[in-house]
């Protein structure tokens, strides 16, 4: 079966037949292809548009704060050679956006955390975090990156902040295009034909499809044939 070809008929053939008559603003389904408009992200309600507009017109973090968050983010997710680091996956923009999108969740935790780490850095090395040497930065990070060890010590304040920043950094990293498709290896989000778990994977897990059900699952070679049943509810054209 030529997947590309069936997908093409699937997309153009069926879309062609879907033209909506009698309605004012139907999409031109004939020419619809599977790319959404590059701008915007779907139909938005007035309060959603206002919310996003507000964010676009406001700012929260100072440049210095974002620099510090970026340094920490890149320590959290440096990436293997050839992979992006956190700031290359949009971390600064994402943190700024989230601070304005969910202020109660993020503003004080992140701003306070940056201030805390600067004090700690000042105390240990006489300068704010962004200005100390990488090895000195790691010296502090090692004390706050392991929550069970930090618990009950003065480092717990930094550790709570670090956990929150790690949470946001992981989201940002693995939801970026490169982080998701290349680093993680997610292969979906595209038209395809699901025909079950690959055989070698089944073998590895010691699993098999139940022979009773195998003939009943969708036969992908015949999916374009209009379904027909006998009166006893048996599907006739899937075999």
């Amino acid at each position, binding site marked *: 079966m030529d997947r590309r070809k069936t*997908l093409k008929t*699937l*997309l153009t053939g*069926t879309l062609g037949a*879907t033209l*909506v008559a*009698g*309605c*004012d*603003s*139907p*999409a031109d389904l004939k020419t*619809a292809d599977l*790319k*959404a408009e590059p701008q915007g*992200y*779907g*139909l938005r*309600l007035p*309060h959603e548009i206002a*919310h*996003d507009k507000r964010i676009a017109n406001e700012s929260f973090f100072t440049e210095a704060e974002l620099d510090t968050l970026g340094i920490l983010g890149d320590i*959290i*997710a440096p*990436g293997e050679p050839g992979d992006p680091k956190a700031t290359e996956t949009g971390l600064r*923009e994402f943190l700024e956006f989230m601070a304005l999108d969910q202020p109660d969740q993020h503003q004080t935790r992140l701003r306070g955390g940056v201030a805390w780490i600067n004090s700690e850095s000042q105390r240990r090395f006489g300068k704010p975090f962004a200005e100390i040497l990488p090895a000195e930065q790691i010296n502090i990070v090692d004390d706050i990156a392991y*929550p*069970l060890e930090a618990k009950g010590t003065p480092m717990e304040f930094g550790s709570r902040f670090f956990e929150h920043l*790690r*949470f946001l950094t*992981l*989201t940002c990293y*693995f*939801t*970026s295009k490169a982080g*998701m498709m290349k*680093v*993680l290896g997610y292969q*979906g*989000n595209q*038209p*395809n034909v*699901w*025909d079950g*778990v690959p055989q070698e*994977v*089944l073998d590895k*897990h010691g*699993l098999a*499809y139940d022979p009773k059900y195998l003939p*009943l*699952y*969708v036969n992908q070679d015949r999916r*374009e*044939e*209009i*379904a027909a*049943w006998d009166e006893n*509810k048996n*599907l006739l054209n899937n075999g």
Partner: protein
Amino acid sequence: MQIKESSKEYDAVIVGSGAGGGMTAKVLADAGLNIAIIEAGPYFDPADKNMRTQLRGTWESPRRGAGTLRSFGDFHAGLSGWQIPGEPYDTVGDTEFQWWRTRMLGGRTNHWGRISLRFGPDDFHRKDIDGLGENWPIRYEDIAPYYDKVDKLVGVFGTNENLPNDPDSFFLPPPKPRLHELYTTEAGKKVGIPMIPGRLSMVTKKINEDRGVCFYCGQCSRACSVYADFSAGTCLIFPAMKGKGQIDLFTNCMAREVITDASGKATAISYISKDDRREYQVKGKVIVLAASACETARLLFNSKAPGMTAGLGNGSGTLGRYLHDSTGTGTSALIPSLLDRELYNEDGVGGMHVYAPWWGNNKKLDFPRGYHLEVWGGLGMPSYGFGGQLTRVQEMLGYKVGGYGNPMLKEVKQMYGAVVGMSGRGESVALYDNYCEINPGKVDEWGIPTLRFHYKWTDHERLQAKHMHVSIREILTAMGGELFEPEIPSYESDHGLLAPGAIIHEVGTARMHDDPKQGVCDRNSRLHEVPNVYVTDAASFTSQADKNPTWTIMALAWRAADHILSERQKMNI
């Protein structure tokens, strides 16, 4: 056609364009009637490039999919949700109710889970079986021909299993299970909980020329641009607009009340146009209410007719009463043998490929009604919160908890696709004391009186939830799982039951009953007291089942539409 005002008298005016309204419109328009649909939300077509969110990568959302504005994710097709600005609702005392409202052409069907289950023969007369609640005035045989029609028109995949209370259907072929679903099925066998192919309304095999065939992106909650998943707009209303009848869409129009004449017959719907905030009327020979169960009750409460001061058709005093939602709880586990998985595209359809219909015997259990189990997991598209379980999983695996850098990133990758969860969805017993009513003195921004809710779970539901937890834990443990929540939530915390309304299967607020003193609707979904007003959403349900409601909403809507047609023929309406 989308219009704002009209002086013509329609054959039928339908309020709401979701599962119920869409199906009524389709059947009536195909019979050649002129229809007006009053819809509170905007026009929506997922094939329109400007509206489409399908196939967008998470990075296209500036909040990376977070649910700040849309509880179920930034790309979710549902407009509105738990709260609508300017349209409040309240609860009475310390009772709880969560009310999900989707306002758009097609309603909640743009993003529902597409789990499409017929009720079984027992589900129509539970009172005969356990003495609780009330029997429906109809039986499975009355509705079965309509389920058949819905199957063939809309399309649902599944397998005929010859089960006593989960009827066979005209099924499309189901997709093969994913890896974690095979694991779950095997584990189910070990503990005596049979899992079978899921029953969902995505078109896995072509059903007609109006619809595309599924291309397995797993994103049905974003609405399908080739119309391969069922939505009332794309699959009922758009095709109906091409047919014999005429459908005029009044979008962004908020129905306020049913207008009646001196004889008590309904003549029109009055509505507020959201664009100019003025009130208009549209006249109809028949009025169909399908604004969703609670919204329909609200419309009836807000409508008055001679001699009917407690709401239209509410002589029985049962309007708003017997409100009930499905029960729900669940939990999840790390499955060590799924760590470090081979990666491939397993998006599949936007929902589970296997599930467990109710397998138990309530006569031998300490709770009266059943539930079914749903499964989730797999290699889905990462979104906001991805990797959030890192430290818990590190703990389970005996790794050093926390960390940073590439070793930590590797651990995150290792656990991708290794978490499996299950949820129970069960039947609750409908009670007179669980209700919605008009909140005295409080209006929404359209000037329409709002609702308040009074809903409490009983031990029937709590004990059922406990049983769900036991069953789910048995399955997850049988697949080698390490539970994220080892203890079953306590009785005091309702054994983990979600708040009433949270499962979004609310039904029963204008229930069917043969006795006009005990129900608002008759067996044909028509108001006992107003012969030309029909209810075709889940307000008319006498009881819910251990099934999701929408297939039954559509079968009953079709049946009600047939009744409207026969009454027209007899010149009764």
